[in-house]
């Protein structure tokens, strides 16, 4: 009898705790579901409807468009591959995000190894290394545009002309190919600190006795790196690669500010923006964004299936 009342009181206590939990979570849940989950679903709906500026106020009665937004996106010259000189946004996006992610992770790894040893002023150096990542994107993008200025007064033009590498000033961000390369390098410059931080944290957690044992066995620096450090870092490298790839694939600001999406650097997020807020064809914009998301999800599934499973097995 006594025990029973205890159990029911215990249950009541648990129910009260759950109620309190949801009460505490309610504002966050409302904002996250109302402004992220619902819009995400709603954007699937928009991508199948004809939504423009004229019916924006009455969007729920927009005419159904079937797959026409998607076919229009796929056939758009800005989207599809048209040969080696004109890649289209889909291919450009993939090339851009893969190369800049690989470069970011490599430089991040290099910087982390550099800072993992003690030296005078390491704390300060570490803090400085994070500057590109914390500074506002608008500032750093415009500084780089100013450094790469096409006029002879641009720093890079001036230096290269003095060194005799080039004779006439170049428009770096307005030359096909070069522009994409520079945007990729910019991404690595800006985001390597993120990779560096994560790798450093992991490096400092590696058991030092592993290295001592290797030294006893006569391993050189390279052997220690490839047989101890790399395997220990494998999981964190995989995770950083995935996160950075995802974010780079979705990134709008960087390319929009550096090149405006011109000269062979038009990626899917910039194309989405142009369809939606230049042409005000929201249906087509949403269809582009959905294509972006589907590409991303397909890649992630493959990645998690293949790469991460291999990591787990070893």
């Amino acid at each position, binding site marked *: 009898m006594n025990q029973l009342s205890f159990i029911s009181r215990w249950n009541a206590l*648990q129910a009260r705790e*759950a109620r*309190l*939990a949801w009460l*505490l*979570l309610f*504002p*966050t*849940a409302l*904002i*996250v579901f109302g*402004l*992220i*989950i*619902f*819009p*995400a679903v*709603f*954007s699937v709906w928009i991508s199948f409807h004809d939504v423009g500026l004229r019916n*924006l*106020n009455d*969007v729920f009665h927009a005419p159904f468009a079937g797959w026409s937004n998607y076919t229009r996106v796929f056939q758009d010259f800005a989207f599809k591959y048209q040969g080696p000189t004109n890649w289209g946004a889909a291919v450009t996006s993939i090339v851009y995000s893969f190369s800049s992610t690989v470069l970011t992770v490599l430089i991040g790894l290099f910087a982390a190894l*550099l800072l993992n040893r003690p030296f005078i002023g390491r704390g300060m*150096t570490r*803090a*400085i*290394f994070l*500057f*590109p*990542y*914390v500074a*506002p*994107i*608008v*500032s*750093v993008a*415009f*500084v780089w545009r*100013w*450094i790469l200025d096409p006029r002879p*007064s641009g*720093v890079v033009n*001036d230096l290269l002309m003095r060194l005799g590498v080039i004779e006439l000033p170049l428009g770096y961000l307005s030359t096909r190919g070069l522009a994409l390369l520079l945007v990729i390098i910019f991404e690595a410059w800006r*985001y390597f600190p*993120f990779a560096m931080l994560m790798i450093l944290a992991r490096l400092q957690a590696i058991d030092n006795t592993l290295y001592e044992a290797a030294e006893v066995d006569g391993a050189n620096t390279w052997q220690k790196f490839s047989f101890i450090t790399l395997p220990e870092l494998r999981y964190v490298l995989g995770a950083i690669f995935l*996160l950075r790839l*995802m974010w780079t694939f*979705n990134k*709008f600001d960087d390319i929009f500010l550096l090149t405006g999406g011109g000269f062979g650097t038009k990626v899917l997020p910039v194309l*989405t923006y142009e369809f*939606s807020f230049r042409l005000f064809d*929201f249906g087509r*914009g*949403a269809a582009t*964004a*959905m294509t*972006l*998301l589907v590409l991303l*999800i397909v890649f*992630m599934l493959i990645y998690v299936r293949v790469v991460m499973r291999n990591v787990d097995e070893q």
Partner: protein
Amino acid sequence: MIETRRMNLIQHLAHRFSLRQIAFLLILTFFLTSILFPFYWMISSSFKTQAEIGGRQPVYIPSAIRLDAYRELFDPSHPSFQNFGANIFNSLMVSIPTALIAVILSVLGAYAIARLKFKGKNLFLNGVLMVYLLPGVLLIIPLFSMLANIGDRMGFNVQDNLSVLIVTYLAQTLPVAMYMLTNYFRTIPDEIEQAALIDGCSRLGVIWRVTLPLAIPALVSVFIYTFMIAWNEFLYALVFLNSRELFTMPIKVNTIFNDPSPRPHVVMAASTIMTIPVVVLFLALERFLEEGLTAGGVKG
């Protein structure tokens, strides 16, 4: 004579440093230059005159500290006065409320997740982390039309409305903020709170009197993190703001940059003003922030 002295210098260097140390120093110098030069260029360009900026050759060191660019930003008597003070104010009016509300809401949410038992916790966490996957450009289209509809019914304007911006920034930052705080709350021993509960404190009392004072470092880093996201944000502000008076700093800098008559020194001055608070805040609170950055895998 000179030759032998130079030899001596090199020998001296070789004697003092090993090849490996020299390589290390060279690489470190390369990293530091490529990181710091853009920042030097930003600040030094902001102190140049129109003539120094527009010359045939770049001026590496400004002849004097000239405030022409800053006068254009702040001095009402300047012919192309930009009223940048208003933009700073707008940025603050967006960033501070975003950061404050994010801290309050994420404390409540993180506490519930770290301490209370309830059904649907994992579902909620996974749903929240979906934000990592969704591109900002995908969300902005439905948000724009949704808010336009709601705005029409409830009688507010979506465009040129700083509160709309605050709400969208909250949506972007709350998940990570909550994640960072949840991790921190889990490191605070449960026993302290249990003791307070037994002493007759209510749950909210426990949060207020016990958990919060212990979590101050984490609260500071969440505040700075959300503040920085809101301060730096570009896309949503670009879409949601139309009137020059309400522009936040990033949009204003973009406008000055795209002005038909190029004035890089003004762009650089505005960028300097926008960058310095963030970098200083970051340096001052680096210890806390790094933990947050690595724990939350901050989106950026």
